[in-house]
């Protein structure tokens, strides 16, 4: 009895992103790397898109690598890893 991943859409599997907001120090490097997916609100509140489209993976990967405290975790179901 195995249930497939959320059967919400039929489009190619997108990415899954989660930022550890305890670690995040609002350095904003991710925002420069992927401005459409990460932004700082107020002084230090990070907003991020937890479900970017598959074609944005290069931007997301740039953001992940840029984070000085490695707070960004990404799963890319399209990229068998």
């Amino acid at each position, binding site marked *: *009895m*195995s*249930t497939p*991943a*959320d059967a*919400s859409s039929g489009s190619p599997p997108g990415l*899954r*992103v*989660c930022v*550890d*907001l*305890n670690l*995040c*120090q*609002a350095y904003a490097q991710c925002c420069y790397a992927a401005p459409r997916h990460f932004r700082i*609100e*107020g*002084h*230090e*509140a990070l*907003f991020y*898109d*937890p*479900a970017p489209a598959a074609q944005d993976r290069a931007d997301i990967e740039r953001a992940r690598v840029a984070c000085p405290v490695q707070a960004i*975790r*990404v*799963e890319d179901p399209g990229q068998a890893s």
Partner: protein
Amino acid sequence: MAQGSTTERAVVVGAGLAALRGAEAMRAAGFTGPLTLVGAEPYRPYDRPPLSKHVLAGEIRADATTLPSSLGADVEWQLGRSVTRLDRESRTLHRADGGTVPYDRLLIATGTRARPWPNPHEGRLSGVFTLRGRDDAAALRAALAAGPRRVLVIGAGFIGCEVASLCRQLGLPATLVEPGPTPLGRVLGSTVGAFIGAILEGRGVDLRHGSEVEWLEDEGGRFVRAHLTDGTRIDADVAVIALGAVRNTEWLDGSGLSADPGGVDCDAAGFVLDTDGQPDPRIAAAGDVARFPHPLYGGRRVALEHWSHAVMQGIHAGQLLAGAKPEGPYAGLPTFWSTQGDVVIKSAGLTEGADAVAFTQGEPGSGRFIAVYGRAGRCIAAVSVDSARWLPAYAELVAAGAPFPPQGAAADRPSKGIMVLAPGFP
């Protein structure tokens, strides 16, 4: 339990954050046997913090919160199934649908649920919401998008304050009713809580502290207004019940484990305890549901409801069950963050039992500051408000039990020097 043994079956009950990180840790630590996650919700593990923030704001869909995971096809998901009973004698889990799941190693990660409004009829009125899961968030988001006259939030803990701030960001009138003297008083004390209250009021939240809602008025099945104990009436279309959480431990009744609505008890290593106080070496617990003696706080039993704790203790328990880790105590420094509108509150350590609080950096009245909590001359916790970059240094002082009030050069001292005050716990 030998590492890498493939004959043993591992089961995780719950499919939330702690469950996911625990299962991943089991695999990472070399457990190659069958691994099953049984979760009451019909969804893969998803992230809850966005639910009270950008999901309510309409910027993220509730179903976009699925957590990244490293689990592969060698894991069985039993989703939309809840476990109703644990039989340790036969090592069997009984599900609500009548099915059974055998285990040799078990991770308990059933988390908490929202504490319901005490009057069940009023709690079911259209327009009355609680907020724990992604379906709750989607339903509340739809109600906010419909443009209610006013949103009433009952309870000024973290989630209540987040919802009230968010309503103001959306331009919705919001009233926050709290019986205590300030918001967040139970966690932060009324001294720091008063500054948070000022920030909320500055954002236009109608804050009614020292007030209690007596009943919710029903008009044709809809919530239309709340009546406070002092006779005040508040007209609103939406009521959000934010009265904290109840731990999901009922399914452990009759299992012989020591569990109650405050959590399931664990020993220092992370194994669950039976009612005689003996550990069961086949079963560990992690996340919101686990109550354990924290070595940083003199072995006091605590149950923590924070994201990073679910991650850290989930990983610890997964390693433990994989047989990969010496049975050292779990001693992660408790930390959390909360985003109130665009204001970030972060904390390291536990404030409980504090006898003093010192404002060491920034200006509390300006809405950006650090508060350090002391007990018997030692630093036990630190809280930052829009000053997160300073917090790691204070977290180190807390972890080390450094003398209170903390010494040392601060680049951003409040103009009047360090203020030391009573923390204002009830």
